[in-house]
């Protein structure tokens, strides 16, 4: 066993760190890590600017093959990249374009589709959103009903998607539609790509409890989608959602961001005085932060393991451990936000204002983080995966 990185990897990490600091010089005041910053009105301009710079440097899609703008970065290299960017709160790219549809196109797209869509993603010119969830199909995604009917060379789409992150900024949507209504559940679904400017698409904001806008509802009213924008075969869409390539999903970025949060909290607690002594002198504060650091170390160690399983191509192990890492990471973020608010006493509830501590960031996180326990496979779904894939329990739902 060897946790050392090679000298080349360490040099790469240094390069990532330095450039991350450079990129963040122009960050808007109060910049955080969460989606609300990246996709909000204040954040989106900065997010795009950073993506452009990363694209110019050749770092936006490092894990993609060379012919599409990447460098075929290994999992460990991606780990180092995501660790550095996560710590410095750099918006590393459009999770839906770079992280999801790009890899899916690489795995199952036609050459024509790859040529049409991959270069604009790699240049940070085309943004994507994900049309999966519907009002009555959340965790039980396969029960979705948005209908697509083949008419000549087109599909006519009618229905509604929801919880569509960043749809208000996205240029394209990838979506699952029902093409065979006689087939229940995962059979009879087709994977389509649609231009968000298509007539008949309406985007309505879903505002989060903190007043920020990153989710949307997307309505489809007789939307015409050319049949060439179908990914894979008709009624084979479910399988396509499983198609992916080797991109790092250890959760290290979130852990690095959590570590940054602790470092910032430590600095603040050394400054802020209460009853004549700094918060850092309070045993209660010391123990809370000590405990959170212990938990971050545990999360980082698990993320290393997930990355290593992926690096070796051990997908069976990496699948349930990645689920463990996701649920552990988001629930830990919740504990951190809660502890941070508590540490500052009554000031913990104050939003950005002259009374706010640390820009009111933690009360913002406290409101945002419950969403992370739900999106991308809720904590309950992750536990189902751990129980069935990791522990061999029967599936009964």
């Amino acid at each position, binding site marked *: *066993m*060897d*946790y*050392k*990185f090679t000298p080349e*990897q360490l040099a790469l990490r240094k390069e990532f760190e330095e450039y991350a600091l450079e990129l963040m010089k122009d960050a808007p005041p109060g910049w955080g890590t969460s989606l609300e910053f990246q996709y909000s009105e204040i954040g989106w301009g900065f997010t795009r600017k950073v993506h452009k710079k990363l694209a110019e440097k050749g770092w936006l899609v490092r894990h993609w093959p060379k012919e599409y703008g990447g460098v075929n970065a290994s999992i*460990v290299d991606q780990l180092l990249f995501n660790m550095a960017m996560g710590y410095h709160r750099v918006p590393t790219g459009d999770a839906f374009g770079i992280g999801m549809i790009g890899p899916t196109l690489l795995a199952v797209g036609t050459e024509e589709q790859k040529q049409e869509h991959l270069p604009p993603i790699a240049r940070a010119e085309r943004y994507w959103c994900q049309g999966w969830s519907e009002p009555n199909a959340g965790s039980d995604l396969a029960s979705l009903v948005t209908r697509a009917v083949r008419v000549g060379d087109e599909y006519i789409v009618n229905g509604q998607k929801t919880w569509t992150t960043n749809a208000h900024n996205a240029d394209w949507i990838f979506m699952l539609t029902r093409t065979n209504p006689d087939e229940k559940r995962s059979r009879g679904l087709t994977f389509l790509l649609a231009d968000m400017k298509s007539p008949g698409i309406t985007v309505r904001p879903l505002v989060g409890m903190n007043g920020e806008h990153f989710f949307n509802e997307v309505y489809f009213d007789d939307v015409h989608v050319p049949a060439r924008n179908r990914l894979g075969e008709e009624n084979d869409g479910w399988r396509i959602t499983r198609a992916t390539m080797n991109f790092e999903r250890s959760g290290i970025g979130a852990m690095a961001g959590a570590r940054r949060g*602790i470092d910032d909290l*430590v600095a603040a*607690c*050394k400054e802020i005085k209460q009853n004549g002594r700094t918060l*850092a002198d309070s*045993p209660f*504060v*010391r*123990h809370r*932060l*000590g*405990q959170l*650091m*212990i*938990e971050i*170390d*545990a*999360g980082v*160690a*698990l993320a*290393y*393991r997930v990355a*290593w399983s992926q*690096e*070796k191509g051990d997908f069976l192990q990496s699948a*349930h*451990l990645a689920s*463990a890492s996701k*649920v*552990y990471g988001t629930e830990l973020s919740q504990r951190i936000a809660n502890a941070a608010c508590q540490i500052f006493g009554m000031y913990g509830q104050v939003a950005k204002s002259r009374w706010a501590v640390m820009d009111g960031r933690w009360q913002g996180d406290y409101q945002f983080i419950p969403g992370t326990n739900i999106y991308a496979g809720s904590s*309950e779904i*992750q*536990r*189902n995966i*751990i*129980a*069935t894939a*990791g*522990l*061999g*329990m*029967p599936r*009964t*739902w």
Partner: protein
Amino acid sequence: MNLDFTEEQEMLRTSARDFLSTECPKTTVRELEESETGHSPELWQKMADLGWMGLVIPEEYDGMGMEFFDLIILLEEMGRNILPGPFFATVVLGALPILSAGTEEQKKEFLPKIACGEAVMTMALTEPSATYEASGVQLKAEAQGDNFVLNGTKLFVEMAHIADAMIVAARTKTGASPEEGITLFIVDGKSPGIKTEVMPTIGADRLCEVVFENVSVPKSRMLGELDKGWPIVARTLEQAAMAKSAEMLGGCEASLDMTTEYSKERVQYGRPIASFQVLQHYMANMLIYLETARNLIYEAAWMVSEGMPCTQLVASAKGWANEAYKFVTERGVQIHGAIGTTRDHDMGLYYRRALAADFAFGNTDYQREVVAKELGL
């Protein structure tokens, strides 16, 4: 980065698991819990024949010359099986400090005896103040001619009642800081003036009170330098924290395995209880604790093995091992239902040891404070 074990390490794990399940079944564990000494000389000799006591002792002292990280694998298996007896005390608390700080003469005297199973060792560090901090070391050692004379009481000394020799931390000077003025001595366990009494503890691990009354130790038995013994203790405590964490990891694995197996067999409402989602999620949580603890323990133990500075990570690893082991065994008992609460059921063997292990080499509160200091708080 390479997070796989070597082939030799995998072989060590397999052979340890086979040996322990055959030679130390739970019936033996229970017999030894109830026995007078908690030690089986027959089992001890078989382990010595396998080379386990000499695993990390260099070949020149009749050992196998393996690394601390290899010992971690062996300890994980011992924890998995719950091996009673003086292995931990002898190897981790006895051999390792002598290996790192002993004179050539001391190494030649003690290490071969440890390797062949002739010597049972331990370390007498903590006192009635019950702290692992240097300030807790108050037992006095005074120079008298060619000897030092020891007076005081040590508490929570593992396996002292059968120890052939123990490394005793004594105060030889009141220094500017509590760390200054501590000296270590290798004391013959049968020395006149030593009185030992086993304390009844939850883990039945034979923690002892050891009273020293005018115990004479030759100066040649000083381990390390006069007044400068604390760094040796601190190093041993880090190694011991990781060694204990490895045992705890093994205990977590066994507890989760036992619980998942039971849940697949136990039928209620006409179906295995493993099919109930509420229990599946309990067990998923157990797995999350286990896997986070496993990987953190390996990472920190690797750093200790490599001799890298890792105070914070060791504290995190032991702190998290404490929480993981208690959580996993508590859920394990719950999922087993009433039978899990009985003296006869194996689940309780692990549940009790989880609390005992928590206290060893720093409970979670202690580790949180270490981490806070390391963070600059």
